């Protein structure tokens, strides 16, 4: 049911972990509904220098988390904000229809982390 790309990212997820002194942290989902993604950002000069994730969820959730971090790394904030759920799913060679909501989570978590960074900046 999953593409090879998905399975690769599930098996060897890129950028798993935490960044203790992150510039921005975003979390979406909640344990009741079962899916949680947390993304940590290190931002320098408007560019995402480092990014890590932690995810509680299905294979698609883990793979999309991994993929979204890969895609965001090195991008400017503006570019990262353009990263859509669809783009993440496409980069993985597609997801089963029932799993599209997992890709939502990934992009949402990224955007939440950026939002957190921007909130902190504006203080």
């Amino acid at each position, binding site marked *: 049911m999953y593409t090879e790309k998905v399975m690769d990212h599930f098996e060897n997820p890129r950028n798993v972990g935490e960044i203790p002194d992150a510039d921005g942290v975003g979390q979406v989902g909640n344990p009741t509904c079962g*899916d949680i*993604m947390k993304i940590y950002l290190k931002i320098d000069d408007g560019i995402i220098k480092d990014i890590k994730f932690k995810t*509680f*969820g299905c294979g698609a959730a883990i793979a999309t988390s991994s993929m979204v971090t890969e895609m965001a790394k090195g991008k400017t904030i503006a570019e990262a904000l353009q990263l859509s759920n669809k783009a993440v799913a496409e980069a993985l060679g597609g997801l089963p229809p029932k799993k599209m909501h997992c890709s939502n989570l990934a992009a949402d978590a990224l955007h939440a982390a950026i939002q957190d960074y921007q909130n902190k900046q504006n203080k």
Partner: protein
Amino acid sequence: MRRVYFDHSATTPVRPEVAEEMQKYLTEYFGNPTSLHYFGRQVRKAVEEAREKVANAIGARPEEVVFTSGGTESDNMAIHGIAMINKNRGNHIITSAVEHHAVLNTVKALGKQGFTVTILPVDKYGMVSLDDLANAITDKTILISIMHASNEVGTIQPIKDMAAMAREKGIFFHTDAVQSMGKIPVNVDELGVDLLTVSGHKIYGPKGVGALYIRKGTRWRQTLFHGGAQERLRRAGTENVPGIIGLGKACELAARDLEKEAAHLAGLRDKLIKEVMDKIPHVQLTGHPTMRLPNHASFCFEFIEGESMLLSMDMKGVAASSGSACTSGSLEPSHVLLAMGIPHELAHGSIRITLGRDNTEEDIDYFMEIMPPIVERLRAMSPLDQE
């Protein structure tokens, strides 16, 4: 890669003896059992012999056994048929919160068609209480449907006592024995039930065939299918002959091997449960600790999610299943786990290991070799607070 199949509650391989018998009824004995001629008569005879085998396996009479397309059809047919023909006597149906969807959704659908439905709760082990059942019964109750054993957590219900309660009040009692067949004794008189569901593919028989036991004298009628007069007007449609032959043989073997199998399975299960609980932290056993199917071990692993465990196990060659919502892409985890009071996040981490006749101690050793690192790896990825 080593492959270990630990998902026998989902389906089982057809036993070679069963497959062999079936094969002949595809090509060689292919007649329509309704046909008058030689080709039909041969097959009619075999179908009736299969009916006897199914009847023998559950302590019924052959004429009380109707062949169907599987457990789902049997459940639907049992419940809808009783409800429709007895609605002049009452409109109340009782079932439990842990039934298979083939029962639960059928009863719920009747709830939208003028029937009143009581869905009994279960305790933390997934067990229905006799008191709850006694309190639920009203003058209008016409049918009680409670499964013999749970597919999800293996818990065995006290059917005998519940059916006795029903009989005393003249209420029809149906039980879904899809999971109990071949693992614990299933006898319609011992249990005291009026209708009982059997499915082929859970007992090393073929998929797409099942049976419904209907006790003689039960006010039941076929209400789902219209068509030919097959199965003495109880199930229209050309009989699934190879399937029926296979079901008959599978029932015969299941009944014959029951004791030996059950002992073998219980030994493996106990080893598995003990080792998982001993060696993996933050795991809970789900279902009843003792009143459970001999082949059934189910757990919730804290902080991690079922589908990702399954995928990881599958990459190591181990096949199991989960009641996590993510497994099916739905938003709610298993209704059974929730009914048992297991919180959502824990229910998401459920894993069901269901053993079968070909499993060995080595399979369990292999599982215990691969599972701890999987759990560890996924927990390392989890954002949940693992204190």
